[in-house]
């Protein structure tokens, strides 16, 4: 197991250097990056909105429940929802979901190309397949994932409002006051920093799993699953280290 991990880590490091080599044709890479941005961004918008709405709603209800009957002012719910969303839940939950949706898709797409000899065909044409197939995906993910996370944060804060104010947990004025209290712009930086790192992790690990797939459809399925599992683990580990690094 240890040897296996070291083997994959070594191969990943060697491979990622090829991924970031000079493009043969900038226009083709740009076109592919735009396609990937559309697939990742527009393609994931609905699921991100759906998840973050309920994420905010549940958070507001549970924080209200936990703070209920105490001397803490009600506007603190808005404040806590905002900061928990921005610092932790929007980047982490969104990227865990994206690892499942986008990551598995990337692994399956590249793995399918490997199995159908598309990658061999491109190699024989002289294309650097590691770069052409992977660099646009990573670049697109690093650009688009932070935008999706920003949407998730906004929608989550809105979801908390929609679930709590009409049901009388607190008033709109209390919630808005909480949202506007003790705001630290640095937390937004932390959110975007996490998003960029997580976007890189989920796309690079998923592409790696797809690129080196061998065998048939069962192996492709396994590679897709491994891509999601490994991305999720790596995102959570990175989350811890970023938290330590940026909050000291």
């Amino acid at each position, binding site marked *: 197991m240890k040897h296996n991990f070291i083997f994959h880590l070594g191969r990943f490091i060697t491979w990622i250097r*090829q991924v970031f080599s000079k493009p*043969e*044709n900038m*226009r*083709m890479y740009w076109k592919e990056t735009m396609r990937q941005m559309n697939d990742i961004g527009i393609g994931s918008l609905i699921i991100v909105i759906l998840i973050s709405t309920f994420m905010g709603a549940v958070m507001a209800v549970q924080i209200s429940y936990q703070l209920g009957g105490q001397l803490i002012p009600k506007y603190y719910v808005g404040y806590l929802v905002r900061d928990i969303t921005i610092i932790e839940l929007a980047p982490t939950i969104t990227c865990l979901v994206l690892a499942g949706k986008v990551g598995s898709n990337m692994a399956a797409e590249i793995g399918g190309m490997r199995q*159908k*000899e*598309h990658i*061999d*065909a491109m*190699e*024989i*044409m*002289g*294309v*650097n397949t590691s770069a052409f197939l992977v660099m646009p995906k990573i670049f697109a993910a690093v650009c688009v994932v932070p935008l999706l996370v920003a949407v998730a944060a906004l929608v989550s804060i809105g979801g908390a409002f929609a679930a709590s104010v009409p049901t009388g947990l607190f008033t709109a004025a209390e919630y808005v006051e909480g949202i506007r209290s003790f705001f630290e712009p640095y937390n937004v930086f932390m959110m975007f920093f996490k998003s960029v790192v997580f976007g890189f992790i989920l796309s690079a690990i998923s592409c790696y799993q797809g690129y080196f797939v061998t065998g048939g459809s069962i192996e492709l399925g396994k590679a897709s699953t491994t891509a999601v599992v490994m991305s999720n683990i790596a995102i959570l580990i990175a989350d811890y280290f970023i938290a330590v690094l940026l909050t000291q």
Partner: protein
Amino acid sequence: MIRAEHISKSFGDQSVLNDINLEFEVGKTNLIIGRSGAGKTVLLKILVGLYPPTSGTIWYDDVNFTALDKKSIRDIRMKVGMLFQGTALFDSMTIEENIRFPMDMFTSKTAKEKLDRVNYCLERVSLENVLKKYPSQLSGGMQKRVGIARAIVLEPKYLFCDEPNSGLDPKTSLVIDELIHDITVEKNITTIINTHDMNSVMEIGDNIALIHEGRLAWEGNKEEVLTSKNEILQGFVFASPFLQKVRALHAEE
């Protein structure tokens, strides 16, 4: 010209190719034949650099291909066209985009020049009205022809074909064989075909190499196939009772 010198290949403990020495001539269709599992595809993949040989050297004209770095290999590959057994056409692209892909990647031609070249290549392989279609909308034979059109779009010096007739009926196989042979002669390129189709052997086999259990068992041309006394060759070529009768008739004549 492509030359393989003392090529051996092993996967772990399993030896697949043993000391293969071959020369593939320019302007000729060079066939690699042999039973399934003999090592033909591995040899072809070593020749194009998809697998590194365990030992031995591949020469592209005067260039030692096996000693090149990745960038130099890519430079050589821009002179290589390849037709895959499963065609390897990109499913999500139209036929036009498939054939245009190498030009989009490596040339600075205008859109019109590219379209003209695509049309020329399609015309060369006798296909019409397929520009906007997707590979899944074409028959197996048509897909092979598109594969050939894509392989020749950058005017390669070397053409590789892996089982070009697999899955095709005898008549379509003949058309594909003739097409590959004509392009080879017309463009004066080095063509290497990996096949176990005996019709191809007898139709277009300018040079034939028989691989048996990872070793070079016989070399010759299509005329020599019928007269050779090599037992492995005879066992491979005249495997069916029908062809054994053909050989007997040939001997009587």
